């Protein structure tokens, strides 16, 4: 791709011709504040924080939406620009609950961070605030629309990445709001992608509530065990308990997760979870009444004992009834490699082609 030369804050750099001014600033190592911008989504240009001055253009323009052109001269910070950014932030905060003390997002909130770095305490524009009733019936997403700054990231990710389009902008003026059609309760696939991109505390996970914010939380990078896709996830662990699952943007799955990976983590610390192999101790063939197995009794066993048991039973059946009396069904929760080994076991070990996978059903 063709490279263009542009000057930002006196630094001359080369950037690809399809870059935006914000991309160029990033390349030059210059931080420009943003709220509505997300590198994986189409530019929005709504928060107005990333405004810059460009020589030859009479008014400030948003760097996130403006394509670079050859020889462009950009200034990212002037007294007037900082002044406008401060006004914009004050306006946002004038319509915000400002309850960082009890907010789930505190410490990880872009709005809070910006308010901190611009030192906003008094607000010249204090006034009416939007008040909404919460009505989410779902167990996953907490939507506190009073904290919503209408950056549109959730709308875009739902549309552009997830392809669902469950929410959009509604109403006009100060009453503008992001919600499902006709303000009905949210009824989507609850992937939580919107939660992942929300820069404020407007969208959080219901399961996260009161489980701890940043302090004492350890992040553990691992791979999601739900399916063969193998998304990289980060477990937030506090007191040896998983309190939240996120995914980093620089992973191969680009930080995107589905409902299971993001919210289906409570099994990890569930008391019902199996931690040792169990062997059925009641012989099912001896009782005609117990065909559903619900009355069966299990006993704990070691892995060695369990594997020995499986191997000896399979050998018995194979000897007695032949290989094709045995069939294997593997799981989508296993990796591709595990599934490969499993079919190998069935074909080469047991000697049957009776092998299938739950994802095919």
């Amino acid at each position: 791709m063709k490279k263009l030369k542009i000057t930002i804050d006196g630094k001359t750099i080369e950037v690809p011709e399809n870059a935006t001014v914000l991309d160029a600033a990033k390349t030059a190592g210059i931080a420009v504040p943003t709220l509505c911008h997300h590198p994986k989504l189409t530019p929005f240009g709504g928060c107005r924080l990333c405004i810059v001055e460009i020589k030859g253009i009479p008014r400030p323009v948003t760097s996130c939406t403006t394509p670079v052109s050859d020889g462009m001269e950009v200034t990212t910070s002037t007294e007037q620009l900082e002044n406008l950014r401060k006004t914009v932030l004050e306006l946002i905060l004038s319509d915000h609950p400002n309850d960082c003390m009890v907010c789930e997002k505190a410490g990880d909130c872009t709005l809070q961070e910006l308010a901190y770095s611009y030192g906003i305490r008094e607000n010249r524009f204090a006034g009416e605030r939007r008040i909404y009733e919460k009505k989410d019936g779902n167990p996953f997403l907490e939507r506190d629309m009073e904290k919503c700054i209408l950056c549109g990231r959730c709308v875009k990710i739902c549309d552009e990445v997830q392809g669902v389009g469950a929410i959009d902008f509604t109403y006009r003026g100060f009453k503008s709001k992001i919600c499902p059609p006709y303000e009905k309760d949210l009824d989507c696939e609850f992937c939580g992608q919107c939660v992942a991109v929300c820069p404020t505390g407007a969208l959080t996970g219901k399961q996260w509530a009161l489980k701890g914010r940043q302090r004492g939380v350890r992040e553990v990078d691992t791979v999601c065990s739900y399916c063969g896709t193998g998304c990289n996830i980060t477990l937030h662990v506090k007191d040896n308990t998983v309190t939240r699952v996120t995914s980093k943007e620089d992973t191969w799955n680009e930080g995107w997760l589905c409902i299971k990976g993001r919210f289906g983590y409570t099994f990890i610390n569930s008391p019902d979870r199996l931690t040792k192999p169990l062997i059925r101790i009641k012989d099912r063939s001896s009782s005609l009444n117990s065909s559903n197995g619900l009355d069966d009794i299990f006993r704990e066993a070691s892995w060695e004992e369990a594997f020995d048991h499986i191997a000896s039973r399979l050998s018995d059946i194979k000897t007695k009834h032949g290989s094709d009396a045995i069939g294997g069904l593997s799981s989508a929760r296993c990796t591709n490699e595990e599934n490969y080994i499993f079919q190998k076991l069935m074909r080469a070990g047991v000697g049957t082609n009776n092998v299938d996978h739950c994802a095919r059903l």
Partner: protein
Amino acid sequence: MNKNITIQVCMGTGGMAAGGFEVLAAFESLMREKNIPAEFRKECSMHKVGCRGLCAKDVLVDVITDDRRTIYQYIKPEMVERIIDEHIVGGAPVSEWEVDEDYHKFHEKQVKVVLSDCGNIDPEDINAYIASDGYKAAEKIFASMAPEEVIDIMKKSGLRGRGGAGFPTGVKWEACRKVEAGQKYVICNADEGDPGAFMDRAVIEGNPHAVIEGMLIGAYAIGASKGYVYIRAEYPLAVERLKKAIAAARECGFLGKNILGKGFDFDIKIKLGAGAFVCGEETALIASIEGQRGMPRAKPPFPVHRGLWGKPTVINNVETLANIPYIIKKGHEWFSSYGTEKSKGTKVFALTGKIKNSGLIEVPMGITLKEIIYDIGGGIENGKSLKAVQTGGPSGGCITTDMLDITMDYESLAKVGSIVGSGGMIVLDEDDCMVNMAKYFLQFTQSESCGKCVPCRIGTKRLLEIMNRITKGAGKQGDIELLEKLSNDIKAASLCGLGQTAPNPVLSTIKYFREEYEAHLQGKCPAKACREMLTYHIIEEFCKGCGACLRACPAGAITGEKKKPHKIAPEICIRCGACFDVCKFKAVGKE
């Protein structure tokens, strides 16, 4: 008995509201009833015409005989019989119903280009337009001109966008022509939303074919095969006439495949707007046509490069397009002979407010405001004095009485902090409070903000809150400075034209009427218009004790015996002003 009689009844929205339909029906039924000889009836044609400007005098009826045109004003159905008997049959016009001097003065200084056929031809009859040299411009370019030549004429004519921003039309066309693309679009922006503006509506209602022909010429110039008219659903009559006009143009071969046998295809679709003011902004308009929420996006890229469905698109306003056939027919020299050095041609204004002759006017650019107000408009109503003129509606600013010699063109108006805008012109008199007026426009822009960008969505709300407290008498010291600061920041930081201009009424009224703001901070509304700041009392010497105010008071604050002076209890009074409005004896005072 006269021969060859034409009766024209004004049937713009204004004419229809005043009873134009009933007047036309009365003519039709009475002519039949009166047993007027058949051969005479054959000679006599009756039809409706579009708005002819002077809405204040509606219903206007023209009776055109061989030798003269008689114009009647304020016609009601019951007056029709006498016009038929005395004028049409008898040959003597009913002189006392003829238009007065005002009507002629109203038209004297006007120059009609866009409106030249409005009010003269039947907008629902394509043959009427063709008979008035309609579609001759299209025929001319198809017969002998290359697209580049058409663009050249537009550039030389100096025509600039009439929607408000004043961008040179020829330059816009040229930019779009140069972009290589398989598909291009022409869009007519008929999403006229400024309060008090009705230019585009009148043009489409009065002469829809001029707009269609303008679009066809534009399409030919840039190489577009599809066009859209984005028009507000609140303009049902304009939509209906446009639909009929498009169908008729298609039937006559001016739209569709192989137009005029020259192998050029172009057709037009109508897209109804759902009443959002912001959809007049071109990128929001495009989003709306595409089925998205009408929200603007940042420019560049401009629509001429990436417009509708990502294809190069030219968006022109109704009035701009309606100028085009006339420029092609009469030449760019003719067009640019009107106007100032940088603002050529004419401009249509909707003259409303406290003006005697309210209505639709078309004047050469460069005419002074004084000429518009006093010569064309006939001065202020009810002998009151002029205070200011608001141009450009909610995006514009006010012009004060000591600036009446200002010329109406893009540059002069911008210099004083106002804009030509789409052409709304609201006249304010001594009873109008400038703070209240600015608040009204701000209410409009705030509720019409799309909500996308912070300065417009929250900033205008905060401006409005400050304006609200000032007009309630609860303003604080420093509020004026805060208004100025916030207004300037909103202008600088907003995404689209709506937010960038929304604070204009506030800034311009502070600039020219700062003392009114200061008076409000002192608890006084000088124009006595901000009701919540007033106290009402009965002036005993004028009060006849009729009880009208007592009955009108919704709060039960007025007491008194019949034929004796009444009293208003200030602690109960809700300051609604109902007593003031209802009193015939001027016995209710307000302070």
